C-alpha cells in the first residue's frame, strides 16, 4: 500500500509540487537565514579566532566583547607574567585607527599591534598571501588583509609598497594575508605593537589586551580565575571570549530577534503552504480514503500511508531547500569578492532545519490524519 500512497501523492503533479515547494521554501528560508545569522555572529569573533598563539586573553575588567577596547596600564603585563601557571604573556594592541588614503579620503581601519619580539597572534604562514610576517619588522610596515585590500584598491593586484597615512605617520603595506571576515567590515592592518601605537593619537594607556600562555598541564579556566583574582582584570580562554562576544551581540543588538523573526516566518509560511496544500490534498481524496477504509484498510495503515506521503515531501523539500541555501552561500562566496561573506553553514543548521521541516510535515500530516481517522467509511455511500 506504500506504492498506492506514493502514487496518490504524485498523481496530482500541481499539488505535489505545491507541497514540495512549500517545504522547500520554508527549508531554504530557515537554512539560509540561520546561516547568515551564524555567519554574522561568527564574524563578530573573527579576530578571537584569527589572533592565535595564546591560551588566554587578559583585558580590562569592563570589557564586554572583543571590539570593546579599554586600555590597561603597561604594568599589568608584568603582573600577569608573574602569576604562577603563566608560561608567557605578551602585549597586544587592538583598536580602530583612521587612515588617509592616497586620494585624500579617510578610512577607518582595525589596527592590530603584535608583540614586537615574538609577533604572537600573527596569521599562520598558510594564510600569508604576499610577503612574510617578518616583513612587519621593516620601518613603518603594515600588513593588510585580503578583503581590506579589495575594499581599498578594488581590482588592483597586490603590490608591496602602497602607502597610507595614519596619525600623520606613513604606513607602508608590505604584505597581505587572509583574515576571517569581521563584523565591522573595516580593513585590518597588522603591525608591531610599537609601530601600532605610533599610528594612534597620543594616549596615556595603549595596552588593550594581554595574550597569555598557560604552562603545560595548567587548566586554562582555573588559571583565568586565578588571574582575575590576583589582577582585578578579566581573563578568558579563547572559547570563553568567543561566547562572551557572541552573547554580547545576541543580547545587545537586534540581530537574533530580526533573524529569528525571519526564520519563524519561514517556519510559519512552510507550515501554512505545506499544511494547507497537504490538507486540501487529503480533503479532495477523502472519498478515496473512505473507499480504502471500506475495502479493509485499517486506520493504522492509513496513518502509515499519510506519514509516508508527508515524509517523502518533507525529505524532498528539505533536500531542495538545503541545497538552495548551500548554493546561495557558495555563489555568494565565489562571485561576490568585495564583501566578506557572512554565511556559516555549520552542521547544526541542517539538523535544526531538518527538525523544523519534520515538524512542518508532521503538522501537515496530523491535520490530514485527523480528518481521515475520524472519517466514517460509510461516507462512500453518500
Amino acid at each position: 500500500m506504500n506504492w498506492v500512497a506514493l502514487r496518490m501523492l504524485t498523481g496530482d503533479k500541481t499539488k505535489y509540487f505545491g507541497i514540495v515547494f512549500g517545504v522547500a521554501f520554508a527549508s531554504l528560508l530557515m537554512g539560509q537565514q540561520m546561516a547568515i545569522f551564524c555567519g554574522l555572529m561568527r564574524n563578530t569573533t573573527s579576530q578571537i579566532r584569527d589572533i592565535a598563539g595564546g591560551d588566554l586573553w587578559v583585558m580590562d575588567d569592563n570589557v564586554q566583547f572583543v571590539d570593546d577596547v579599554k586600555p590597561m596600564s603597561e604594568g599589568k603585563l608584568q603582573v600577569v607574567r608573574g602569576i604562577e601557571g603563566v608560561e608567557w604573556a605578551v602585549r597586544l594592541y587592538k583598536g580602530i585607527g583612521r587612515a588617509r588614503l592616497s586620494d585624500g579620503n579617510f578610512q577607518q581601519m582595525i589596527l592590530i599591534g603584535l608583540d614586537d619580539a615574538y609577533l604572537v597572534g600573527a596569521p599562520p604562514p598558510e594564510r600569508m598571501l604576499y610577503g612574510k610576517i617578518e616583513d612587519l619588522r621593516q620601518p613603518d610596515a603594515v600588513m593588510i588583509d585580503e578583503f581590506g585590500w579589495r575594499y581599498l584598491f578594488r581590482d588592483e593586484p597586490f603590490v608591496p609598497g602602497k602607502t597610507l597615512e595614519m596619525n600623520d605617520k606613513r604606513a607602508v603595506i608590505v604584505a597581505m594575508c587572509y583574515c576571517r571576515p569581521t563584523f565591522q567590515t573595516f580593513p585590518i592592518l597588522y603591525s608591531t605593537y610599537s609601530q601600532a601605537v605610533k599610528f594612534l593619537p597620543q594616549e596615556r594607556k595603549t595596552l588593550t589586551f594581554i595574550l597569555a600562555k598557560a604552562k603545560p598541564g595548567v587548566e586554562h579556566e582555573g588559571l583565568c580565575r586565578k588571574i582575575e583574582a590576583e589582577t582585578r582584570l578579566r581573563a578568558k580562554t579563547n572559547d570563553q571570549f568567543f561566547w562572551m562576544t557572541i552573547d554580547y551581540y545576541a543580547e545587545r543588538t537586534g540581530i537574533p530577534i530580526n533573524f529569528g523573526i525571519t526564520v519563524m516566518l519561514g517556519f510559519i509560511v512552510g507550515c501554512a503552504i505545506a499544511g494547507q496544500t497537504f490538507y486540501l490534498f487529503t480533503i479532495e481524496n477523502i472519498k478515496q480514503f473512505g473507499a480504502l477504509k471500506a475495502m479493509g484498510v485499517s486506520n493504522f495503515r492509513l496513518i502509515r500511508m499519510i506519514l509516508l506521503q508527508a515524509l517523502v515531501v518533507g525529505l524532498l523539500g528539505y533536500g531542495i531547500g538545503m541545497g538552495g541555501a548551500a548554493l546561495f552561500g557558495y555563489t555568494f562566496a565565489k562571485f561576490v569578492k568585495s564583501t566578506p561573506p557572512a554565511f556559516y553553514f555549520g552542521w547544526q543548521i541542517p539538523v535544526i532545519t531538518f527538525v523544523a521541516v519534520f515538524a512542518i510535515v508532521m503538522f501537515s500530516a496530523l491535520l490530514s490524519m485527523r480528518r481521515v481517522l475520524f472519517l466514517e467509511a460509510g461516507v462512500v455511500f453518500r
Partner: protein
Amino acid sequence: MIATSISPATSTSAVRLQDVTKAFGTGESKTLALNDVTMVLPYGELVLLVGPSGCGKTTLISLVAGLLDATSGTVEVLGRNLSTMSGTRKVNFRGVNIGFVFQQYNLLPALNAVENACVPLLIAGWNRSEAIDKAAALLTKVGLGNRLKSYPNQLSGGQQQRVAIARALVHEPKLLVCDEPTAALDAASGRTVMGLIRETALQNDRAVIVVTHDSRVYDFGDRIVEMSDGRIDRVVVPALGDKLSEIHS
C-alpha cells in the same frame, strides 16, 4: 491478516438481519433509520434494495458491510455476527469477504484502470505484479482489456463502473455490496453494468446486494426488497410469479 473467509457450507444464508434497529442522534433529535428490520439474503441470489430516498437502504447496506453498528438486533454476514465483532476484525473481515461498488466509482485518480482494480489484492498483501496480472485478467473479462493503462479521467462513466466492478471482485469476495451502481449511467450502460455484476459476481457461494433507484434494472434481481420509513414493505420474487409492476417506482 486474520482469515475470516466463511464457507457457505456453515451457513444457509449470506446475510441475515434479525430485528435490526438503527438510530441516529439522541433525545428529540433521535431518528430511526431502520426500524425492526428482519431480512435474509440467500447465497446465489442478487437482491435489489429499492425505495424512496431516506427509507434506510444505505443504512442497511452500511450495516451489512460492517461500516455501521446496529443499535439493536443481530446482523449476521457470512455466518458471522458483526454485532459482536471488534473494529479491527471487522476491517479485516471486510477486506477479505466483501466487495464494494459505489455510485461515484471512487476510483483513485492517480492509478490507471488495472492499478485501481488490483487495490484489494494489495490490501490483502499480494505482490504488486501478481496483483496487476490478476486484475488485468478480470478487466479483460469485463471488456476493458484494451483500456488497462487508462486513467479514470480517460474513461467513460460505464467504463469506470466496470473498473470498479473488477476492483470489487478481484479478491473473490463472498458478498458484493453495490450502491446505486447504475445511477450515473445511461440506460444501456446501466443494463450492461448490471448484466456484468450478475454474470461475474453471482455464483452459488456468493451473494450480491444492490441498492438502486433505477427501475430499468429491476429485472436483474432475484429478489426485490422494497423499503420505506426504515421498514421493509414487501419482498418481490419474480421467480415465484410476483410482478415487477407491484413495486412502487
